[in-house]
C-alpha cells in the first residue's frame, strides 16, 4: 500500500474542508477531553487524599481501645478504656516496630500572654513527630527524660502559636494548662487540615505522663500509635499486636481494634475512584457519539466525492487504494481530534486544579488509551463509508452528478 501517498491525499482532502473537518472532530475532541479531564481531576483529588492520609504518618498502625457492653447496650470504639501504658511498652517490644506513642486527648482552655484559647491537648511520647512524619519548626521535641520526670514541657502547633503569641517566638515562654505553667520547648511545622476537616495545627502536645498525672487523672490511654518498619510489615505487626494484646488482656473477646492508614486510604479513595469511573464512563459514551459523527460526515463525503472516486479509479486507483484513502481520512480526523482533546482535557484539569489548589497528575496511561481508542474509533467509523466508496463502479462514479 502506498500509505505515504494516501496520507498526503487525506491531508489535502481535510484541508480543503477545514471548517467541516473541525466540526467533525469536535465530537472526538469533547469525548477525549472529557475522559482526560475527568480522569486527571479525579486522580489529582485521589492524590490529595493520599497525601493527606500519608500525612498521618508512614506505615502507622493505630490501636483503639474497645467498646463496652453493659446490659445489652454496646458503646462505640473507645468507649471502654482498655489500653494502658504497659500495653504500649509491650507493643514497643515487638518485631518490626520502629516507634510507639500512647495517645491521651483532652480539650482544655489554655492561657498565655494575656490571651486564652480552647484547643486539643495531647499526651504523647517523644517519638510522636517521627510517627506522624511531622517536623519541628523551631525549638525541639520534649525528651524521654521529660516523660520520666512528668515535666511541664509542651510543644505547640502553628495555630495555637498564632493565637497566643501573635508575632512572637513562643519558644521559651510558658503556657498555662489547668493553671499549671508549661514551658514551650518547640513549635510544630504547619500541617494543615486532615481528611476530616480538622485543623491539625490546633494542638498542644505534652508528655503523656504529664497529661495523665497533672492535667487529667487517667490510667488508660485513648489509643496507641505504632510505626511499623515498612508498609509490607504492617500486616505482620498488626497480627502480632492483636495476639499480644489478647494475651495481655486475658479476654476472649477482642476489647480493642487495630487499624492502619492503608485501610483508611482505601476507604476514602474508593469513593473518588468510583466517581472517576462514572465520569470516564459518561465521557466514553460521548466518544462513541463522536465516532458516529465521523461516520456520518465520511458517508456524506463519499457521496459528495463520488466523481472524484470515479476519476481516481479511471486513472488506476484500485479498490484498496480508495478504501485506504477514506480510512486514513477518518483516522486522521479522529487522531487529530483525540490529540486536541488530550491537550484540552489536560489544560482544563490544570486550570481547575490550580483554582482548587489540588495537586495535578498527568495520567500518561489514560492519554495513551485515549489516543489509541480515538484512532480505533476512526477505523471503525471510517470503515463502512470507505468500504462503500471502494465498491463503487468506476463508470457510474464518473457519470455521477
Amino acid at each position, binding site marked *: 500500500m*502506498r500509505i505515504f*501517498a494516501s496520507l*498526503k*491525499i487525506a491531508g*489535502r482532502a481535510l484541508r*480543503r474542508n477545514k471548517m467541516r473537518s473541525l466540526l467533525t472532530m469536535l465530537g472526538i475532541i469533547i469525548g477525549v477531553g472529557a475522559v482526560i479531564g475527568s480522569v486527571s481531576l479525579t486522580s489529582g483529588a485521589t492524590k490529595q487524599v493520599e497525601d493527606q492520609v500519608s500525612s498521618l504518618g508512614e506505615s502507622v498502625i493505630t490501636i483503639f481501645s474497645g467498646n463496652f457492653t453493659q446490659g445489652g447496650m454496646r458503646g462505640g470504639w473507645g468507649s471502654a478504656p482498655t489500653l494502658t501504658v504497659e500495653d504500649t511498652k509491650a507493643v514497643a517490644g515487638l518485631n518490626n516496630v520502629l516507634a510507639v506513642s500512647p495517645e491521651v486527648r483532652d480539650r482544655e482552655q489554655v492561657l498565655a500572654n494575656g490571651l486564652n484559647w480552647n484547643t486539643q491537648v495531647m499526651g504523647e511520647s517523644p517519638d510522636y513527630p517521627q510517627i506522624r512524619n511531622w517536623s519541628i519548626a523551631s525549638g525541639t521535641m520534649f525528651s524521654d527524660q521529660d516523660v520520666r520526670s512528668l515535666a511541664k514541657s509542651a510543644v505547640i502547633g502553628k495555630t495555637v502559636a498564632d493565637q497566643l503569641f501573635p508575632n512572637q517566638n513562643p519558644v521559651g515562654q510558658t503556657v498555662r494548662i489547668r493553671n499549671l505553667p508549661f514551658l514551650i520547648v518547640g513549635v510544630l511545622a504547619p500541617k494543615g487540615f486532615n481528611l476530616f476537616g480538622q485543623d491539625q495545627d490546633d494542638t498542644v502536645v505534652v508528655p503523656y505522663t504529664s497529661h495523665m498525672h497533672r492535667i487529667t487523672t487517667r490510667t488508660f490511654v485513648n489509643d496507641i500509635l505504632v510505626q511499623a518498619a515498612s508498609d509490607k510489615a504492617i500486616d505482620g505487626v498488626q497480627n502480632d499486636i492483636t495476639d499480644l494484646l489478647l494475651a495481655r488482656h486475658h479476654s476472649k473477646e477482642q476489647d480493642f481494634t487495630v487499624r492502619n492508614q492503608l485501610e483508611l486510604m482505601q476507604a476514602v479513595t474508593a469513593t473518588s475512584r468510583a466517581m472517576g469511573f462514572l465520569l470516564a464512563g459518561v465521557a466514553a459514551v460521548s466518544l462513541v457519539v463522536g465516532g458516529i459523527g465521523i461516520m456520518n460526515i465520511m458517508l456524506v463525503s463519499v457521496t459528495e466525492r463520488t*466523481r*472524484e472516486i*470515479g*476519476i*481516481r*479509479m*479511471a*486513472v*488506476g*486507483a*484500485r*479498490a*484498496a*487504494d480508495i478504501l485506504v484513502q477514506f480510512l486514513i481520512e477518518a483516522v486522521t480526523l479522529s487522531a487529530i481530534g483525540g490529540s486536541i482533546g488530550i491537550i484540552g482535557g489536560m489544560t482544563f484539569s490544570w486550570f481547575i486544579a490550580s483554582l482548587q489548589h489540588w495537586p495535578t497528575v498527568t495520567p500518561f496511561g489514560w492519554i495513551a488509551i485515549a489516543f489509541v481508542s480515538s484512532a480505533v474509533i476512526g477505523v471503525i467509523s471510517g470503515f463502512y463509508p470507505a468500504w462503500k466508496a471502494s465498491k463503487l463502479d*468506476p*463508470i457510474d462514479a*464518473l457519470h455521477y452528478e
Partner: protein
Amino acid sequence: MPINPVIKLDEIHKTYHTGEVDVHAVRGVSLAILPGEFVAIMGSSGSGKSTLMNMIGALDRPTGGHYWLDGIDVSTLDRDALADIRNKKIGFVFQGFNLLSRTSALENVEMPMQYNHERIGAHEQLERATHALGLVGLGQRADHHPNQLSGGQQQRVAIARALVNRPSLLLADEPTGNLDSQTSIEIMGVFQKLNEQGITIVMVTHELDVARFTKRMVILRDGKIVTDEAVQNRSVAENELQRLRQEQQAVKLAS
C-alpha cells in the same frame, strides 16, 4: 516483422441485462489499431460507441469476445488488474475534463503516478508532471486551480494527466464536447502534435468536423461497425485556426 497492434478486438459483444429485456449494446465488433494511429470512433447516440469506449478503456469487460491491449488479454482480468492496466497503459481524456477541484494543475497531473506500482519518487513525479504540462503548453500555469483556468486549459491539464504515466494509448471521450470551436481546434492541434510524436490516440466523437482531424474513421451503428476508412482531406489544426481568424477578421471588416 509484423507490427503488433495496440488494440485488437475480436468479436466483442456487450449485453446489459436490464429487467426483462436484454440490451445488446455491442454486437460483434472486430478491430485492430496499430501504434501511431489516430482513430475517431463515430456514431449517433445509442450506437454503442460509449460502451465500446468503456471496454477499450478497461473500465468495463465485454460479455463476449476477446480484447488484447498491448498483447494482454484484458477481457479476462479482474478489477484490480484492470485498475493497473488503466494506470499504466491508458490515458483518459473526458468530455467534462474531470479534474479534481480545488487542486492545482500540477497535483492533478501528478495524481495518476500515486497509483503507479513502480513507486515513482516525489522528485521524479514533479519532473514528469512539469514536463507533461509543458507538452500541452501549460508550463506557466502549474499552480493554478481548475476554476482559475479556461475550458481549453482545463482540457490541456487533463491531457497532461493522461500522458504522465507514459501510456500506450490515449483515449479521448468527446474531448471537445464542452468547448467552443476555436478552442476545439486548438485541442485537436494538441492531439495532432502528440500523434506526430508517435502516441496512439483513439477518440470518440459524434462531430464530423472533429473527426476530420484524425487519420481513420470508424463508424458504428446499432452496435456494429458500418464504415472503417482512412480520412480524406484531413484537417490540419494550424490551417483551420488561420482560416477561422481570417473569417473573424472578415466579419469585423464587414461590420
